Structure formats: structure tokens, C-alpha cells
């Protein structure tokens, strides 16, 4: 089985994000990482490969040249090959799904496709299902447990209140990972060395027949949200402070 993992390169979780010209962010000081949920996806892909002899993991990433670093990370963790869909334009989730679908369906033996439940930049939370629908295959998102046997995936997805849906899907299918699915491995030194020698396959976006004119969702404006004014510390011994706090919550803030 050819296992795929679709990843996105995003600013580090600790990064301060500043608006540049109302429509983009200042990338100058940003450290780029693989979106955290995609790391769970990579790990699960590698685990599935280890259990299925003869399987291969291919990492796919769409974006400008810098995203090759994200692909190197996936290779260093243990992916066998990598595809860079070269794009310097902004695509919405639908267009991205179409471009990725073109790459994946060219492989007649694709099996399970893993990705994160959302990328922590635009937080659009829809690419996984759009990709599955484009390929006309099943999909589950927010996945916390994954098992694969006899060509069938059995997954558990969190639906809030501690409840989980148990879902069965026949491969090929899309599995979108949530935190808790696994603990991603660190790349070993050997893995990093090996990753350097693997050639990343490059596919220009134009070859997929997708371009930004097909977008349905268009960014108009980025802005920084209003900062909360500094609050106040309630002084006194714990018992007195607690009484005052509850009074304020009731009479001033009116939230209880």
C-alpha cells in the first residue's frame, strides 16, 4: 500500500504574528515548522507502514520553496519519498484539495491518506474532507485512535463531552489526526542524514490544472484583535479575596 501524508508548513506556535499590508503576515522573523497536527499524521503513517511490509510513505506539501524544509522533516522522521507541489499563490482549501487530489490519484495504489485535522495558520479545518470528496473516498476527522486490518480502517473520533464515534472505512480513505492519536517520534541523526540524500519530486502547480482563479474563499483583510485591558488583582487573605471575587463576578461582571 502506498500511504500518503499531506502536510503544511506554518509559523511556530510561539511566534508573534504581525500583519504586514492588511492581507499578509510579516514573515521576516518567523521560524517555520510542520503544523503540529500534521506531525501526528506523519507518525501514524509511519506506524502503519511498519505494520505493513512493502508499504511506503510519501509526504506531500503544497507551497513556496521554503516548504521543502517541512518535507525534509517528514523524510527525516522516516517517510520514503516527498512531493513538493510548487505554488507561490494563495489557494483556498477547495483549490488545494483539487491540486493534492491530482497528485495522489496519479498513483493507482494509494491507500490511507493522513493529515492533520487543521493547519494552525488559517485553521480552515476542511481540507481533509474536501480532498476525500474530490477523490470520492471516505474520510474521518478529529481522529484519536486508528487501526487497520484487512483493507479496512477503524478509527475513533472525538465529538466532545468525552464521547467518541467509532467509524469504519474501507481504504483508500482520509484520516485527519487530532492531538492524542500518538506521540510523534523525533528524527534520528541517521534519519536526518538519510533525508538529505532523498530527492524531493517537484510538481509545478500548473501541472495539476489548478490555479487561484478557482478559489471560492477570498481573504479580504487580516487584522490584530483588540487587546484586553489589564485586569485587577484582588488583595487580601484567601477567604476575603474569594468572597470579593465571587461578589465581583456576580455584581460587576454579571457572569454567574
Amino acid at each position, binding site marked *: 500500500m502506498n500511504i500518503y501524508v499531506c502536510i503544511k508548513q506554518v*509559523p511556530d*506556535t*510561539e511566534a*508573534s*504574528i504581525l500583519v504586514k499590508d492588511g492581507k499578509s*503576515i510579516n514573515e521576516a522573523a518567523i521560524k517555520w515548522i510542520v503544523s*503540529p497536527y500534521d506531525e501526528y499524521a506523519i507518525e501514524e503513517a509511519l506506524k502503519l507502514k511498519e505494520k505493513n511490509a512493502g508499504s511506503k510513505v510519501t509526504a506531500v506539501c503544497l507551497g513556496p520553496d521554503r516548504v521543502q524544509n517541512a518535507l525534509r522533516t517528514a523524510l527525516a522522521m522516516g517517510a520514503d519519498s516527498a512531493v513538493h507541489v510548487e505554488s507561490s499563490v494563495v489557494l483556498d482549501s*477547495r483549490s488545494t484539495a483539487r491540486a493534492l487530489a491530482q497528485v495522489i490519484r496519479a498513483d493507482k495504489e494509494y491507500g490511507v491518506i493522513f493529515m492533520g485535522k487543521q493547519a*494552525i*495558520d*488559517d*485553521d*480552515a*479545518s*476542511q481540507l481533509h*474532507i*474536501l480532498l476525500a*470528496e*474530490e477523490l470520492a*473516498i*471516505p*474520510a474521518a476527522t478529529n481522529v*484519536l485512535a486508528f487501526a487497520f486490518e484487512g483493507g479496512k480502517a477503524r478509527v*475513533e*473520533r*472525538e*465529538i*466532545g463531552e*468525552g*464521547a*467518541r*464515534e*467509532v*467509524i*469504519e*472505512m474501507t481504504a483508500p480513505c482520509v484520516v485527519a489526526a*487530532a*492531538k*492524542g492519536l500518538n506521540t510523534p517520534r523525533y528524527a534520528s541523526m541517521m534519519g536526518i542524514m538519510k533525508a538529505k540524500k532523498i530527492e524531493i519530486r517537484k510538481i509545478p502547480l500548473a501541472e495539476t490544472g489548478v490555479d487561484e482563479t478557482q478559489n471560492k*474563499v*477570498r*481573504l*479580504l483583510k*487580516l*487584522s*490584530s*484583535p483588540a487587546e*484586553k485591558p489589564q*485586569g*485587577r*488583582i*484582588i488583595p487580601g487573605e*484567601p477567604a476575603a479575596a*474569594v*468572597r470579593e*471575587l*465571587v461578589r465581583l*463576578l456576580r455584581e460587576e*461582571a454579571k*457572569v454567574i
Partner: protein
Amino acid sequence: MANIGLYIELKDGAFKKSNRELLSLAAKGGHNVHAVVFCQEAQPFMEELRGVGTVIQVKGADLSYQPDRYARALAAVILEFKLDVFCGICSAQGKDLFPRLAARTGAGLVNDCLAVDLENRRAVKPVYSGKLLAEYQVDGDKALFTIRPNVIAVEAAANSGAPVLKTVAMDSGDLGTHIVEVMRSGSQKIDLTEAEIIVSGGRAMKSKENFTLLAELADVLNAGLGASRAAVDAGFATSDMQVGQTGKVVNPKLYIACGISGAIQHFVGMKTSKVIVAINKDPEASIFKKADYGIVDDLFAVVPLLKDEFKRTLG
């Protein structure tokens, strides 16, 4: 004026309170509003749906949530009733269902909206985990939006006319993505993303057992129980409790942070809370810069007192 559709989400057959936000959003602007509800009997919901023009009841032999069946039925409703804009709650089910609708109707989708201009098909949503806000335009003849809970002010319907009831049938066709079982946890936990009050603990909780202290406080307030990434990574709390950039984004009326330092990772997940209370013995903790009210003291002293005081006041 536009043809607006609302997906009325039920939980175990009951009307979810967040639906009222959708109804309030759609009530403005003189739109022709359609509320779609999957149920065997529409009558119990008609009072809540008073004020909309049309209630579309989707009936079928088995109405348990199955993504493919629901998506097929809703996509057909959107096309048949020529709905220009279709909205739902940004819940676990909404996030599963709406991308399927986007694919099947060819419409653009914006998830997790804080504000929606239905007429112009524009929406504002948080991006970069809430570090920025983005305004999006959905182009084309249809638009889909899911709305974050606890954002839109609920107002009583001005139009008190009884809605027209229409019924459509759901097919029982093939399921690619098949939900075979729903596992409920023993403890009835409150959904953090829709909770009105959340009590949350950080690394300073020191142990899994100490989280019982917070659970007791949460019980008194009928609150959800959350945790910081540090507490989850230390094994004090489960990952479904994590609030923050790689956890849940929450939006309660009241967020009580106990022993949480207030790293940006956590803050972006709860900063839209109406009121933030911080309890931490470190006066330098950055959570105090972001909290509306703070108590600088040992949480193990403060939390039990707080529980008793809430019990006294609310009881």
C-alpha cells in the same frame, strides 16, 4: 434579501442551545429563513423555530448521524430550496458535515465564524489560533458558514408567525464513512467548546489526583473542566481537556485558570472568554496581564474556598 438555510443540530434528539444563535443571526435583515431539522416529529421544535419562514423536516427510518446520509440529504435541500447561504454550529458534527456540503454543492465554506454578513457573504474568523482575525469573502452563487458557539447575542424572534412545515425524505443509501458506534464516557462531561463556564488547571496542579479539586469546583458551577498543554503533557489531564493552540479553542462567559502561567499557546485558546479569572501564586505569571480578576495565592488554599463560596452564593 437572501434565501438562508440553517442546520438545526440536535443532541440525542434535543434542540441544542447554540441553535438560538443561528436563529438570531438569520433573523436580522429580512431574509427568507429555512431551518432544517432531522427528526421524526417536527412539532416539539416548532416553538424554538418560531420566526423562521420555513421548517424543513428531514425524515428517515434511521436518523442517527451518518456523515454521508446527512450530507446527501442536506446538499439536496440546499439545491432544491435554492438556499444562497447555509449556516450551522461550529461543533464536532458541524465541522464534519459542512466540508462535505461544500464539496457536494460546490460552495465555499468558512468555519468557526465570529461574525457573518449574510447579505454580502462575508465572515470574520480567527486565524493563527486567534492571534489574528481574517475577513473572508465567499465568491460564487452559494456560501457556507459554521458559527462559533457563544458569540452571537441571542434575541427573541420578532416575527411570531408560525413557520410553514415541509417534509423531505432521507435516503438510506450506502455509507462510505460508517459510524458503527458512539462511545460515551462514564462521566457526563460538558463540551468545552460550548461550555458557558470553564475551570482549568495548569502544571501547578502537580498531579492527576489534584484535578479532583477542580472537578469539584466545576461541578458546583456546572462548568467544563479544562487544562493547559503543560498539564496534559505531564499526564495530569487527558488531551481532550487541553485548551490552547494544539487543543480546543473555547469561548465561555467565565474562564477560571488555576495554576496556569498563561503562555501564548494557552492564551490564544481562551482569550475570547468574556471574563477570565486567574489564580496563581506567582505574581509575575503572565496570566495576570490577561485576566480580568486575579488572586495571587496558593491555588490549593483558594480553590476549596472558592467552591464553598460559589455553593453558598448559588445555592
